[in-house]
């Protein structure tokens, strides 16, 4: 069943995937004497040369604080910063650039909504609905908002396949529900939720919606108009952009009602010693000097993804996923955790009798970078009666050879651990 990238490249037409891979400097290294096979994309993506260069260039030529400066560097920095906002708006089909708030990450984006929208709209008796698949980033902020306001957190259950059924969602969206906050793609299992349908269900009942799109932005096009969602959050670093930057999209009409969570420079209109008035959107929600270089890196990441094209990206990812699923299912000791019908390039598995940590270490010795542990989804792990999994997460820059390397490495590790096939 061994396929080479050459033999497969016929399937994926135009795109030269080897050339794409060559754009990622970090992938071309040896780890413990083996070529690095990076399967930890869902934790953070590797960065193409163009993203790194865009930030370097910014620091080398245009570095200045934005917005209030009249000098050329500040103008250039501001222009680049605001053009990136426009590009990001276009990227997710927002109506207006002022619907794009730059934050420090998905986590910050969700927290801003939980704190600001939550404080204004939640009261005892209200319900906040999330799913059992959530990353802690879309669970803990709601627990905190509920603790603060007296609202109740409800969880749509996960089935044995690691899916959340639309019927359960429909059932749990009711007159007490104020907001439905869910991840579009589960980082732990790869489950793709029918985001559009869920938002429609909620909207029919007048319920506010938030999508955690952290795992989506590098893999699928996002169209907030089509989704009809109120809030949508993602991180630059998971879409081949830099660390320290996230996006909060909000419908203008609803963002306009939000009180700022942080106060400071840039978010004010007028300040006296006694009181302050807030600036217009998006600035009102961006206190302090923003992550300017990060925003410029995000802009380059969007260009990079779009230059490859969503069709090519999804075809490639699903080919890699199919191949990896095939290879891994041939290893009898492996038990998959979650087998969602709609699955992104994420595979979680355990080997009974082996702690994921041990497997992770022994794979690292063979150049394999995958993630072990609870993937910031402890309740979901508990649902499956485990404390963690090994997680393979794939991106367009992975190769079929790397999956073969993974296959060999797992077998070798299991031999070393004394977990023979006949177990």
């Amino acid at each position, binding site marked *: 069943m061994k396929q080479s990238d050459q033999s497969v490249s016929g399937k994926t037409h135009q795109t030269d995937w080897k050339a794409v891979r060559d754009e990622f400097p970090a992938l071309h290294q040896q780890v413990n004497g083996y070529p690095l096979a990076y399967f930890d994309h869902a934790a953070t993506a590797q960065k193409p040369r163009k993203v790194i260069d865009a930030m370097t260039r910014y620091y080398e030529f245009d570095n200045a604080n934005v*917005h*209030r*400066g*009249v000098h*050329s560097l500040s*103008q250039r920095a*501001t222009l680049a*910063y605001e053009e990136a906002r426009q590009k990001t708006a276009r990227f997710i089909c927002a109506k207006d650039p002022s619907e794009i708030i730059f934050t420090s990450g998905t986590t910050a984006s969700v927290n801003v909504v939980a704190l600001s929208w939550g404080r204004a709209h939640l009261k005892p008796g209200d319900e906040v609905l999330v799913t059992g698949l959530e990353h802690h980033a879309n669970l803990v902020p709601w627990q905190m908002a509920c603790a603060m306001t007296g609202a109740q957190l409800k969880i749509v259950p996960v089935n044995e396949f690691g899916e959340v059924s639309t019927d359960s969602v429909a059932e749990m969206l009711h007159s007490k529900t104020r907001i439905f906050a869910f991840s579009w793609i589960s980082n732990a299992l790869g489950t793709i939720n029918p985001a559009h349908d869920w938002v429609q269900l909620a909207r029919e009942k007048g319920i506010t919606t938030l999508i955690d799109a952290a795992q989506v932005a590098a893999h699928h096009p996002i169209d907030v108009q089509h989704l009809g969602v109120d809030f949508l959050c993602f991180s630059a670093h998971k879409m081949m952009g830099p660390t320290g930057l996230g996006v909060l999209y909000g419908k203008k009409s609803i963002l306009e009602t939000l009180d700022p969570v942080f106060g400071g420079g840039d978010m004010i209109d007028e300040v006296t010693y006694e009181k302050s008035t807030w*600036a217009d959107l998006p600035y009102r929600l961006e206190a302090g000097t923003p992550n300017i270089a990060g925003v410029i890196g995000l802009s380059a990441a969007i260009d990079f993804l779009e230059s490859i094209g969503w069709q090519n990206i999804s075809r490639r990812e699903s080919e890699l996923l199919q191949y990896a699923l095939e290879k891994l299912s041939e290893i009898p000791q492996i038990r998959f955790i979650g087998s969602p019908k709609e699955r992104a390039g994420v595979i979680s598995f355990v080997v009974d009798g082996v702690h994921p940590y041990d497997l992770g270490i022994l794979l690292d010795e063979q150049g394999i970078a995958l993630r072990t542990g609870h993937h910031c989804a402890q309740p979901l792990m508990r649902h499956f009666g485990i404390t963690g999994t090994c997680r393979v997460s794939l991106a367009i820059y992975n190769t079929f050879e790397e999956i073969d390397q993974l296959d060999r490495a797992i077998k070798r590790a299991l031999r070393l651990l004394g977990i023979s096939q006949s177990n």
Partner: protein
Amino acid sequence: MMNIPSNMKSIQDQLAADFEYLDDWEERYAYLMDLGKEVQGLSPEEKTSDNLIRGCQSRVWLITRYENNRLWMSADSEAFIARGIIALLMKVFNGQTPSDILNENFDLPERIGLTAHLSPGRANGLAGMLSRIRHDASLALGTQNRN
């Protein structure tokens, strides 16, 4: 003030030509500020926060009036250069019809080397003034269409 102006393209061409004669940035700014001196300005009562263009480091106030199917404007600023920019905008847009305003490709700033003033940041007023004019033009267009 109520004279109907010539078409915007030719006004822009004329202004660009005027600026082309000027040798260096000093002369260009001197000319721009001279133009600004001709701007009539606003009375203190007109300088309300509603009329204030957000996003200008020097405060700029702008008022438009829709009359005889045309948009008429008056404006003021604390800064000489901002007044010069106001003057340019008024020369081009004052007394034009809303639909012409909305259709006009306003490329004068690039042509006379004032692009910096067009940045979408908040330090500069040109972008803010321009979008206020366009906004008011679309409002006026709405009124017109309903008539």
